[in-house]
């Protein structure tokens, strides 16, 4: 049971995270929504801020920012901890449902090498469909129980699908549909909005301070931050999906997480994937 947070714990926590120098880049309030221009500005910001990082290397998160961490990662990658999840995912993907159908029947190209096109915007439903949502829908359509969005089976399935797309660049499309632009803008707004008692937005850490440390962890750049999903985190000593990453990030800054795959999270994933277009998929990944 969390002890009652006294003023001192609050100030300690703020001081602890105050080591994050918070300088906000010059900002002009342009109201027209122009995703293409956003994506270009987003890419240029990171390429200029980290000229020594090779373009494709941004997908390696903290390991593109710190040599000592990169070496530990290289050691792990020789026989990565997500090996079991990947094999389990491959096996599950080929196992038929009770009604004889397969996951492959729900996806283009049998679900092989398509991860980089997710999330997509479904113009019939007028909302963002992430890979995780599509997988659970495929299960429900075929009379199966949906999986938890945060780990285990969902992580194993998405690990396999990501693996089949390794190296393919993100290719997120925003159709000419005002609802799609609204979903994109909603994701962007969530990304930059400060939340939680520590009053941070995703950008406070992943735009203003990539490469800096929060205690043992080195912050990853936002550019290409979802390319390695799902990830095996040593901290979780297990696999985690994008949903797990979003909910745990919220609780880290003392914000109450929303339901996995709620609208805000799906739009956030839509925005973050779109502005990382062109960067290769590297999932499943291993992280600290």
């Amino acid at each position, binding site marked *: 049971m*969390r002890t009652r947070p006294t003023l001192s714990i609050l100030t300690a926590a*703020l001081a602890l995270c105050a080591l994050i120098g*918070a*300088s*906000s880049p010059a*900002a002009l309030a342009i109201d027209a929504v122009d995703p293409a221009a956003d994506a270009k500005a987003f890419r240029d910001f990171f390429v200029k801020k980290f000229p020594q990082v090779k373009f494709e290397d941004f997908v390696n998160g903290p390991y593109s920012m710190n040599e000592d961490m990169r070496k530990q990662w290289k050691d792990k990658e020789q026989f990565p901890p997500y090996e079991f999840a990947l094999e389990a995912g491959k096996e599950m993907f080929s196992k038929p449902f009770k009604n004889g159908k397969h996951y492959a029947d729900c996806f283009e190209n049998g679900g092989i090498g398509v991860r980089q096109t997710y999330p997509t915007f479904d113009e019939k439903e007028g909302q963002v469909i992430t890979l995780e949502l599509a997988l659970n829908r495929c299960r429900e359509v075929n009379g199966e129980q949906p999986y938890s969005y945060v780990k285990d089976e969902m992580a194993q399935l998405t690990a396999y699908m990501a693996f089949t797309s390794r190296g393919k660049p993100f290719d997120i499309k925003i159709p000419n549909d005002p609802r799609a632009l609204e979903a994109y803008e909603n994701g962007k707004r969530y990304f930059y*909005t400060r939340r939680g008692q520590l*009053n941070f937005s995703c950008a406070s850490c992943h735009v203003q301070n990539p490469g800096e440390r929060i205690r043992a962890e080195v912050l990853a750049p936002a550019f290409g931050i979802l390319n390695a999903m799902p990830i095996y985190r040593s901290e979780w000593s297990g696999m985690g999906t994008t949903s797990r990453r979003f909910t745990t990030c919220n609780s880290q800054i003392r*914000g109450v997480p929303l339901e996995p795959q709620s609208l805000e999270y799906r739009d956030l994933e839509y925005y973050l994937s779109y502005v990382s277009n062109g960067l290769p998929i590297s999932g499943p990944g291993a992280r600290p």
Partner: protein
Amino acid sequence: MSVVMKNFTFAVIMLAGSVGPSLAASEADFKAAFAAADAAEKEGGRLRNQWTTTEAALSTAKKAAETGNFDQALRSAQEAEALAKASIVQATSEQQRWKDMEIH
């Protein structure tokens, strides 16, 4: 003043203002304070912006009340209300302020 300092003072002001001295609290005092805190937290929920520390303070208040310790229960309820209100202010102010940080 750097953004971090702003956060710091912003949070401190929110908290310091709410904890006033009070005689031995009665159950009625607690119930009123808890209701206010709960309402504020529901509003925070509507804005999709609640804090984990508010939830913690609310549950501490409830537990203290169950054991009859209404002083503690009242203090926790008041703190929960302050935290919930802070999360509402944060949500409303950020509706425009988020653009300050946007990459252009």
